[in-house]
Structure formats: C-alpha cells, structure tokens
C-alpha cells in the first residue's frame, strides 16, 4: 500500500515482484511440471517408457487413442459451452427484464446467499431434489404418480450431461448477475436509459443497444472464468455428470489417480489438452466478439423501433427468478431434512425417524477441518483483499493521473491467470514443486495456493466500486489530518467498508470451495470441510453427506451475513452509506 502513497519506485517494484512470485511463479512452474510428463518425462517412475520417448507427443497420442477421450471431450465442451452461454444470456435477460420491476431488489439481495452455496453442496442438494427417488418425487408419490418404487428415469448423471449443465447454470447465473450489477454501477446507466427513452427507444432495445455494450467489457473476463471453470470442474461433475464416459476433467483426474502409474503421462497430456481448449475458446470468443461488433455496427444506430413484448418477458423473467430461488431453497431444504433424518425411504414425503446423531457426531469430527477451513479462508481472503486494495489504490492514482501507468495492464492480467487456467492443468506440477521445496502439507502453502484462486474474485468484486471512489474525500482528509495514512484508514477504508467486506466474503467462499488445490498441496494433511465433503459425497450415506454439505454451506453463509450486517451495524445511523 505504500506504493500508492509515496509512489516510491522501490515499493512498486516490490509489489510487482511479490505478485509475480506469489501468483505467476507457481502457475508457470506448475504448467511446466505438467507439460514435462505430458511430453514423456517423469523421472521417478520405473516405467516401461524408454528415454527415446522423452520429449515426444506419445502421451498426447495415447490420450486420443483412449476410447473415452472423444466422447468425453464432447461432453465437457458441450456442457461447459452451453452452461456458460445459458447462464450468461439468462443473467442479461434477467437484468434487462427485472431492472424496472419490483423484483430488482429481490434479485439484488438474493445474489449473496446464492453465491454462498458451495457448488458441491448445491449439487448434492440438487440430486436429493430431482433424482427419480428425490424429494420432489417423494412429495407427489404415491398419491399423484401411483408409484411406490421410484421410476427408472435417466435424470441425474444423464448421458448428455444435461443435469450437470443445469447445475452449472443455476450456480453461475448469480455470479454473472453479481458481475453485471458491478458493471452497471460503473456508468450512469439510469441517465442513459432516460435519454434513450426520450429518444423513443423502448426499454429492452435501449438496454441492448446502450447498456449492454457498455457492460460487456466488464463481463468478458467473468465469462471466460466461468467457461474455464465449467470445463475443468471435477467435484460437481462427479455428483451430477455422466460417468460412462465422464467429462474430460474427471477422466484426466482418473488418469492422475489410476493404479497403473503409466497413466500419469496421459493425465498430464490430458491436463495440457484442457488448457489448450481454454486458450482456443478465448481465441474463439475474441473472434466472435470482433465479428459481432462488425455485424451490429449499423444495427446499433439504426434508430428506434419498438418491437418488444415487455409484459410477457417481464413476467417470464419473474417466474425464472422465482424458479431459481425455489430450486436453491429446495436444495438446501432437502439437505436440511436429510441431515436430521434417521430412516427415510421412498415414497415417504418426510423421514420416518429423525435423529440429531449425525450433526452431533460431525461436530466433534469436523472441529479440525472447520478450524482449518476458517483459518485458510480468512487468511487467504484477507491477504487477497489487502493486495487488491494496494493494487486498486495504485490504479486509482493512475486514473487520477498522479501516477504513471507502469505495469498496470499486464499486472491485471496476471491476477486473472489463476482464474482462467484450468486447475488440473497445473496443480500436478505445483504439487511436485511444493514437494521439492518441502512446502507440501503445510497450512501456509495451502493458504498461498488458495490466495491464487481467491485473488481474482476479490479483485473482480471490489475493483469497480473502489475505482469509482471520489478521491477528493481522501485528499480532503489528508489535508485535514496532515497524514495520508490516517486519512486512508479513517476515511477511505470506512467509506468503502461495505464493498470491501463483501469482496472478503466472496473471496472466503471461493476459498472454502477449493477442492483440488487443497488436496494436492495439503497432501491430505491439511483437512478442510470441502475435502471431507467430497470424500463423503460419493453418496455412501445421504444423512452424512447432507450434514457435511450443510457444514460446507454454513461457513460462507456466516461470512456473507457478517459482511452484510457488520457494516450496517457500524453505520446504522449513516444514511449515505
């Protein structure tokens, strides 16, 4: 943070060095550590591979020779692309249609709790809800369906990855909504809409022609992040996805864990292939963007023409939002009921026997994992938010023109790298790095790796608000108290307390949900609630899975609630905050 103040070159270089070391070094080394085995180099394996195969593309050829690869890639690409596309369009459509409705407030307030639900907990809940023997069927059976045994319907784990896509859409739409709101706050959208209205544009058309093009630059990165995440997600895919074959990320993970250690080569090659896919999609998006910009050039200025059936689509948007909320509440409620049940068979709508046993037992058992999760989450989120503030403070100086841009642009991309690069494509290499440095299995290393993944989200949620801050408050304050530091701490930070707290909560939730990084770097010794949940989410015991999924939800929920409530308590008599 000294950077922003003194503008000292040393401090700036230190910040850059820190960011490179903390964020870029592990990813780069991790990638190399994955590419080497992908190219046939994996010392330590007494394999039948001979050195002539070093630095060859044999492993990649084997990946494509594997019978599951093609089908599995299709599933991954299909589900990731459609989930990203649907969630993105859905979020924009909801924004457009609900912006002027009474539900805008509902939408705004539902984002935080929806984001707090960890992906894994959500998917476990979704299975409890929609599977043929799930809660919905139990509620209507046998009265309405006449069924006393569940039907053999291919709903969950379907071969088209439709339920996986549904799960991803339901989970990513709130994220896009959050990003859209933050993008909206960046410019005078209300005035823009008023001017457009006065020029005879209907609300939806004005939105499409004036608002969306201004929002889009802020949404591009989140979109890529969601795409990369959907392509490489493992835990949700295990619960909701197909398994014969599974999605490509799961397949790669299977190869990394295969009892025949020669599959490590395939795993590494497959992981590298995933990265290639993501890069390809980034390029593809860029091309589509350029094309759309050209194609819509004349449309944007073609003049006003009312063609919207606003009432119908507004009504539909309301129903959709309601449906999304209902499914999420249903998932959580299903988990809750299961967690208190002792015996619950189909087609009973509610458990036959209840028990507190599983909560009681989990409480003792989860003491350490919960503690670890909290420590890792709080430290990584806190460090991330602090680094973000330092960066943003610097950026706002650049914005004001009182500091030179320096490395700004490239630096920002560096922060986003961990969000865009699929986790499996470099974690194997990071694991080797950590082992070499004797850093594996330590809390600090896990915090470090979490920081990598938490940072982009903290930055994404904080940047817009932070950069919109009127710097004259700070100037005024530093003149008044003759200290820039005091002014910063007593004026700027408190005025930005709400968004900072929210960004912290988002970062914390991201940390809690990390599975692979915790597993690979923690060497299993640093146990978190998510590791426990994934181990038990295999579906062995619905009651235990439910309890663990809920625990995984409770921590982020507490932090989200705190992030919303604490600023309100602090500033309860301050209307302007």
């Amino acid at each position, binding site marked *: 943070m000294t950077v922003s103040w003194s503008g000292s070159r040393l401090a700036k270089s230190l910040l850059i060095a820190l960011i490179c070391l903390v964020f870029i070094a592990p990813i780069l080394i991790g990638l190399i550590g994955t590419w080497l085995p992908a190219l046939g180099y994996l010392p330590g394996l007494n394999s039948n591979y001979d050195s002539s195969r070093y630095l060859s593309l044999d492993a990649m050829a084997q990946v494509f020779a594997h019978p599951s690869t093609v089908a599995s890639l299709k599933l991954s690409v299909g589900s990731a692309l459609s989930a990203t596309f649907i969630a993105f369009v859905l979020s924009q459509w909801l924004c457009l249609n609900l912006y002027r409705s009474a539900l805008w407030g509902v939408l705004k307030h539902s984002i935080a709790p929806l984001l707090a639900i960890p992906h894994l907990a959500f998917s476990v809940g979704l299975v409890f809800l929609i599977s043929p023997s799930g809660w919905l069927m139990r509620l209507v059976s046998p009265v309405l369906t006449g069924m006393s045994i569940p039907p053999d319907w291919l709903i969950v784990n379907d*071969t088209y990855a439709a339920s996986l896509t549904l799960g991803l859409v339901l989970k990513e739409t709130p994220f896009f909504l959050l990003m859209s709101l933050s993008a909206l706050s960046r410019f005078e959208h209300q005035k823009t809409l008023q001017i457009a209205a006065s020029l005879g544009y209907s609300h939806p058309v004005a939105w499409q022609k004036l608002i969306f093009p201004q929002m889009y630059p802020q949404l591009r990165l989140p979109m890529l992040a969601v795409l990369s995440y959907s392509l490489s997600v493992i835990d949700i895919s295990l619960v909701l996805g197909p398994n014969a074959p599974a999605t490509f990320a799961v397949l790669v993970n299977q190869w*990394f864990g295969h009892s025949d250690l020669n599959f490590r080569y395939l795993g590494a090659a497959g992981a590298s292939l995933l990265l290639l896919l993501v890069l390809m999609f980034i390029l593809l998006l860029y091309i589509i963007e350029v094309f759309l910009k050209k194609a819509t050039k004349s449309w944007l200025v073609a003049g006003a023409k009312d063609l919207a059936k606003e009432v119908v689509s507004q009504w539909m948007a309301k129903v959709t939002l309601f449906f999304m909320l209902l499914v999420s509440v249903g998932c959580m409620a299903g988990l809750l009921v299961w967690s208190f049940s002792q015996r619950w068979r189909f087609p009973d709508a509610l458990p036959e026997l209840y028990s507190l046993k599983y909560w009681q037992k989990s409480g003792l058992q989860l003491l350490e994992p919960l503690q670890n999760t909290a420590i890792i989450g709080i430290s990584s989120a806190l460090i991330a938010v602090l680094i973000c503030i330092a960066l943003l403070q610097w950026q706002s100086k650049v914005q004001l023109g009182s500091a030179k841009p320096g490395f700004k642009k490239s630096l920002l991309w560096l922060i986003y790298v961990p969000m865009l690069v699929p986790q499996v494509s470099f974690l194997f290499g990071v694991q080797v790095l950590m082992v070499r440095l004797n850093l594996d*299995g330590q809390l600090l290393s896990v915090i470090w790796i979490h920081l990598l993944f938490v940072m982009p989200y903290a930055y994404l949620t904080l940047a817009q608000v932070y950069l919109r801050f009127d710097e004259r408050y700070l100037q005024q304050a530093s003149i008044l108290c003759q200290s820039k530091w005091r002014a910063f701490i007593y004026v700027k930070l408190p005025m930005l307390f709400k968004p900072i707290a929210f960004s912290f909560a988002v970062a914390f939730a991201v940390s809690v949900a990390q599975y692979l990084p915790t597993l690979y770097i923690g060497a*299993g010794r640093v146990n978190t609630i998510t590791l426990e949940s994934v181990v038990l989410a295999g*579906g062995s*015991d619905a009651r235990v899975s439910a309890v663990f999924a809920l625990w995984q939800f409770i921590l982020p929920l507490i932090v989200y609630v705190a992030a919303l409530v604490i600023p309100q308590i602090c500033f309860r008599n301050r209307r302007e905050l």
Partner: protein
Amino acid sequence: MLKSTQKKSVDSAALYRYIAVALLTASSPSWALDSKETIAEQWQKTLAEAKGQTVYFNAWGGSQTINDYISWAAKSVKEQYQVTVKQVKITDTGDVVSRILAEKTANRTTGGSVDLVWVNGENFRAMKDNELLADAYTQRMPNYALVDTENKPSTVYDFTTPVDNLEAPWGMAQLVFMHDTEKLSVAPTDMASLLQTLQSNKGRFSYPALPNFHGTTFVKQALLELVDDPQLLTKPVVEADFARISAPLWVYLDKLHPLMWRGGKTFPKSAQQMKQLLNDSELFISLSFNPSDASNAIANDELPNSVKTYVHAKGTLGNTHFVAIPFNANAKAGAEVFANFLMSAKAQLHKANPTVWGDPTVLAMDKLSADERKAFAELPLGVATLTSEQLGKVLLEPHSSWVSALEKAWIARYAK
C-alpha cells in the same frame, strides 16, 4: 529372502506353485536373518522409537463406519503406545500413490507425507513395481505371526502379486450381494439367473462404472463364472487370447446392460452409492466387499431390515486388504506399531463385530488364545449376514494383468 529370489511379476508359472512357495516361506519369515536379535527384542526398540510419533494414515474415507473404527484404533494406540494416528481421508488410493511418486520424483527419501496407506491389488502392485514401498517389515511384527497365511492365500498374494512382507494384512473381503426381500423375494444364484431376475425387474441392478474397484470386481466375477476354463485366468493375459477368452463376458454384459439401472447408460458412482440406491428402492440388488455390510447398514437405519445378503452358488471373489508403509515414511516405527495393532486380536475382534464394521479377520483362530477364540466365536452374526458356510467358496482373484485388460476392453465398449 523372498524379494531377491522372485521376479517382479508372476510370469508363466501357475499361481498354485507360487502359493506353495509362499506357504513354505511366509510362515517362518526371515528367522535366519534376525537370529541375533529376537523379534521381541527388536520390537521393543520399535516401540521405543515410535513413542511420540505422529502417523498419517492415508485411508479411503468414504464410509463413516470405517472412519469411526479407525478413530477407535487411533485412540487405542495413543493410550497404549503413545503413538498419534491421524487419518488422512482420501477418495482414491491412486492419489496417494501419485503423491508418493511426486515425492520420489523430487528425491525426498525421508520425511514423506504418507506414513501408512490402506492399499491392495493394483495400487499395491504399482507401488511395488515403482519401488515406492519401505523394505520388508511385517516379519518383524509380533502379531504377524497370528495371521492365517496358510489358509488365506490372499494374505500372501495380493491379487497374485507376491506380498513379500511389504504390506500388513488388515482384513478379508469377499464379494457379496444384497437384495431387498420385500421387493425381490428370491435372490439370483449366478450370473445367468441374475439376468433372468432382471428381465422381470428391469432397471433394479447395476454396478459402478470401471475403473471403480467394485465395478471391476463384478466384471471379474462375471468373467470367472462365464469362461469355460477358469484356470486360464490364473495366468497373465495374452493379448491374442484375450478376445477369445473374454468373449462370453461381453455377450453377457451386452444382454445385461439394457436390463440394468438407467438402461446401463450410466452407472452408480460407487458401491456406497448403490447402498443408498438400495435404500431408495431404485435398486433391488446391490453389492459389497464386506459380508457384514448389510447388517451394519440395517443397524444404522441406512437400509431396511428386509435386506438380506447372498452369494453366487459357485463362490465369489475374495481378497485381502492391507496397510503398507511407503519408502520415505516419516514415522516408520509409529506406522509399524499401528499396523501391528491393527493385526492384534483385540483390534481384529472389534473390527469383525458387525455393529462396528463387520470386516472379517485375517487371523488364524488356532494361533489365538482360548479366550480370544471364544470371543471371536461369540461375535454376533448380524441380521443379514451369512455364516461362513453360507458364504461358500472364495474364488481367487485372476492374475492382476486381467484387471487392466478388462478395464480397457470395458471402457472401449461401454464408455465411449
């Protein structure tokens, strides 16, 4: 010693010959070498060294029942030997093997992150082949002498890979099926009658997709029942013969899959999930490697008490699961103490209790004291458990090379 005289894999010789060798050697392991120091003296040293150590026990954590048992065992060694055991709950033993491999790649020959790992079969072979295991040690453990190496050949041959004292037997497993008698009163007796049963109960059975351990086991069981000459399976796979020998299996599975859960288009994630599906009545038949699984689950209200265990008439596959110490374990002495405790009569008795876990013991009854024998004899059987007579014949695992061949062929057929 065994290790130096035997080749890494069993080549052309028949399995039985190896078992014979094992019976000769395993019962009196390395006495000659340790003649100067008795086992007891050596063990005292190990105990002293182990005091205060922390053992990271990497064990599959998907079952609450098993996790609870491990906690109990950990508590016992803490009290008795001042060794702290922490269970690292894993989803896949392959991940652990990967981690040890990464450590080997990084030249970490001591201070490894894994002290003890629950392992058998393919993962054991991979660790053995890649020299990821500590030197032979079970012969130094007092309780190893109690293991029934004579009548339980799978304690000496882990899926046909010679154990060579590199892993300590922990428990016995046998493939059993469970059926909900309320929904399906008559249990199938073999693969053919399973197919018949499903014709009138379409969609009510499945098995986990390969390479899942239970899925592979079911396919192996089917193969054993369907091939003309099961003897062929005791030998390594010869690529040229694989298609011919396995042909009846694929014919069978092609008929079975359309009658299975979700039409065989998707599969349960694991045998544990199948238990849940059995409770939900999505399935009428499920499978397990633990003969007491059903009883345990009934006691737990995880399954209704209408569930019963059954096996196929000509026997089902059985094997042994072990614990092994990696080459670079940080707390070797502590791991040995814990592994030794796990083989003790006390620990095995507790484990065999169906209300605790119900995992069959690896110990030989005639090597135990009268009291211990009595305690074992008095163990409750569990409402849904079969007696050892009812459990019938234990079929030996096919040669381990069959696993990867079957897996490959299965994936090429059903997961593309």
